[in-house]
């Protein structure tokens, strides 16, 4: 009997069973009553050889249709330096576990320490953890952290312009608990803070906002932090980490918590996962932050080294009193972001945000000239903008004709929110990776359809 990935020979099996005084494999399962032991093997297919699996998976993958993606909504097609995949495929990184044994895991620990440092630098916050699942779950953790930081609070004030999926994930978190999600009003595609003070009662643990928001707009949080803090609540801002290469950082807005996703920094689209949530907080919240944290220390000889730290917050110590249930995170994705940022440096990060900005505005400007479409509101945006169609049939034709040119024209916002008011809205994302030719191809096809 030869099974993949099991090294035992018949002789091994015999010798080992003999050693432990058993006659057969059945003896290994003597603690299972007979009605628990499966007579037949589970009804899945027989094993396949590597060559068969290569053919099968390659052919399945080819059933996907590739195109030039002008798709965003939380997952963006940015340039990734070749260093990222080269490093992130090194086996000592890939096949390691969480670095519990610091002495033999200095490489991973140091890389995480560098990740934390970069997140702190970019967000301007004091303390970052080692990563979370994704941007939506980072918002959930921000909400949890807020409620545990402000005693007796149960309400999270949320901007209506956060990503529709983040909002759904947050609603799931609240469902069946004493937590309340209260949405602020929306105005011109931006969170409307004009009545914020009315919402800020003692129940409120935090205000959570997002910029660039669900439409791609950049929001202005001038004076918001002071208002929120005056009521003893926390202020959390969610951002695509890359966007902070251009827009004001959470720390500059006076936020207590910065969350979001690092997907734009080194992670491929990959059908949406693995992504990489991040979370960074002020010093005051250091012992409230969820997830793994790496810190520097010294050994007996005074040599600098890195280790998991502040573990008293965590589930394996504090169990039900932990700040979160997080155990596995997205360490390898965090490594990819770390290599990406190491390769770009600050000037590269600025360049990526700037080119995305200019290219997105180039496309928006020319699309806005066309009949039958307008830009939904004229709020400032970075690399993604909402185009509204006057006619649903035209919108379908637009998407289809561009598809025929090998272009994914944008994301229908209505498909995410399933809200009729969003049905005519197409969110178009443009990154620094889209070449001039691709932009012109888009515009030419758009003109053919709309003119």
């Amino acid at each position, binding site marked *: 009997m030869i099974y*993949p990935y*099991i090294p035992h020979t018949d002789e091994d099996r015999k*010798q080992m069973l003999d050693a432990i005084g058993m006659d057969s494999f059945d003896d290994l399962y003597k603690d*299972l009553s007979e009605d628990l032991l499966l007579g037949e093997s589970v009804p899945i297919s027989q094993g396949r050889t590597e060559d068969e699996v290569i053919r099968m998976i390659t052919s399945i993958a080819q059933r996907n249709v590739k195109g030039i993606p002008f798709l965003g909504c939380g997952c963006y097609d940015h340039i990734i330096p070749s260093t990222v995949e080269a490093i992130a495929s090194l*086996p000592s990184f890939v096949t390691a576990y969480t*670095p519990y044994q610091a002495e033999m895991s*200095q*490489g991973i620990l140091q890389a995480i320490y560098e990740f934390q440092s970069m997140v702190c630098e970019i967000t301007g916050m004091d303390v970052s953890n080692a990563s979370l699942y994704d941007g939506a779950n980072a918002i959930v953790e921000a909400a949890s952290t807020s409620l545990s930081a402000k005693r007796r609070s149960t309400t999270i004030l949320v901007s209506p312009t956060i990503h529709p999926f983040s909002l759904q994930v947050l609603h*799931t978190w609240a469902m069946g608990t004493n937590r309340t999600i209260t949405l602020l009003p929306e105005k011109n595609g931006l969170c409307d803070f004009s009545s914020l003070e009315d919402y800020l009662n003692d129940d409120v643990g935090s205000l959570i906002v997002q910029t660039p928001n669900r439409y791609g707009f950049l929001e202005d949080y001038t004076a918001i932090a002071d208002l929120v803090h005056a009521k003893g609540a926390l202020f959390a801002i969610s951002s695509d980490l890359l966007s902070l290469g251009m827009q004001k950082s959470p720390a500059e807005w006076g936020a207590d918590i910065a969350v979001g996703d690092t997907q734009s920094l080194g992670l491929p689209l990959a059908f949406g996962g693995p992504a990489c949530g991040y979370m960074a907080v002020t010093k005051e919240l250091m012992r409230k932050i969820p997830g793994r944290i790496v810190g520097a220390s010294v050994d007996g000889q005074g040599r600098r080294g890195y280790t998991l730290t502040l573990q008293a917050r965590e589930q394996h110590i504090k169990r039900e009193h932990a700040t979160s249930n997080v155990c596995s995170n997205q360490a390898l994705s965090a490594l990819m972001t770390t290599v990406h940022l190491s390769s770009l440096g600050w000037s590269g990060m600025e360049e990526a945000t700037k080119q995305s900005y200019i290219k997105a505005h180039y496309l928006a400007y020319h699309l806005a000239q066309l009949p039958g479409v307008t830009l939904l509101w004229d709020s400032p945006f970075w690399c993604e903008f909402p185009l509204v169609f006057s006619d649903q049939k035209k919108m379908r034709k637009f998407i289809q004709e561009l598809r025929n040119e090998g272009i994914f024209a944008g994301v229908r916002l209505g498909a995410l929110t399933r809200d009729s008011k969003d049905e005519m809205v197409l969110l178009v994302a443009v990154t620094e990776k889209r070449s001039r030719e691709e932009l012109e191809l888009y515009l030419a096809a758009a003109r053919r359809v709309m003119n």
Partner: protein
Amino acid sequence: MSEPLLIELSKKGRKAYCFPALDLPRGFESALPSLPSSLLRQTKARLPEVSELDVVRHFTRLSTLSFGVDNGCYPLGSCTMKYNPKISEKLAMLEDFTTIHPLQDSSTVQGCLSVMYNLLEDLSSITGMSWGTLQPCAGAHGEYTGLKMVRAYFLKKGEARRNKVLVPVSAHGTNPASAALNGFTIVTVASDDEGLVDIDDLKSKLDDSVAAFMLTNPNTLGLFEKNILLISSLVHEAGGLLYYDGANLNAIMGNATPSDMGFDLLHLNLHKTFATPHGGGGPGSGPVMVKSFLRPFLPGPDIELTDSGYTYNWLASDSIGKVSMFWGNFLVLVKAYIYILRMGSEGLRAASSHAVLNANYMLHRLKGTFEIPYGDTCMHEFVISCQNFKQEYGVSAEDIAKGLIDSGYHPPTMYFPSLVHEALMIEPTESESKETLDEFTDTLIGIAERAKKDPQWIHGCPWTTPVGRLDTAKAVKEPDLHY
């Protein structure tokens, strides 16, 4: 050798990467109004300015200061550090997967949906469950998702009073933490002398406020809960649900199903049982599988196979909603699917049987040297106690663990479960050969013997690593968390 921080190698103006020059009509850029200054960032972030070679060397050197399954035996209990097939790594990186956007129209992502649908079918068969969700990104995330469904189920049923979740004292820490995250009150169930669920204690805690009992079986002592059918009927009679923590599925996969044991729902750890790599701490994947009565509560969207191919189904009215931004850690799902395709039904059964064989063989070889507090045999893992070393020689479980590092092994899990003093929890997995097990156990016994005679040596272990044991108290008291 130690490696400086990359920022310490930074030099103003050095670049590892250059972007293509902006190629728009020159007039456009200058005509474009910039953002209102109130929205603009004021400060620069301090990131490394280095060359491409600096980046490559820095992280390559860091990789040599790390240790994975590819480097050697990694018998970390409850973590199932089995071999991660190279073919999975290769195929998951196919451009036809990595360049696909999650919000493309479903007609253009039939490959991705096919992987997910077929993986769900196979996981249903393997667990005996009806269907599930692939959205959770990790085991704990699966627990959270599963318990949220439990909550939704009882709310729908009008049993909002059920606000308690029972967990055995030996449970993984994530169990109570995930329950707490869902607003449940946690009640701990004692273990009996054999290390199993104390049935009397369980009975005393079962009432109509209990929503669920969370159990991993085999439990964290590596013992099969023999009374599982009794436990199941007790919990169900009390109106509660039985939740299976799939962290230890590698003991029974293909040989028995959680479904037959009476579990109503469970999560799996694809990065344990299904051989996807741990990545230094993630990404993992924690699908939740349920019996049919819980199916309406699954997170959305579901995937359906229709005449026109695979499509999303968002319609489930009782769905708890989404738990991840998109569809989960898709590339991890691809790897798990490949593993299942490779192994097939007989292979999966063989995996767990051989995992149990390996653990029992190691247990057998170690029991002359170490105290085995519970059980004479085990399932896929077992726990030894170093208490006698501690008491007689002042040698702790940690000391012995650190001794292994110098011999090129990753130590077992330390000090868990807390039931056992000076615990080392050992899980060899089926990937390791008899020869490796013999060498590992010989080494461990050798370390234990030497430790008795040479306390100074063992307290100083490891000796061969770039740093020795770190001052963890200092790391907490004077947190140094970024550069």
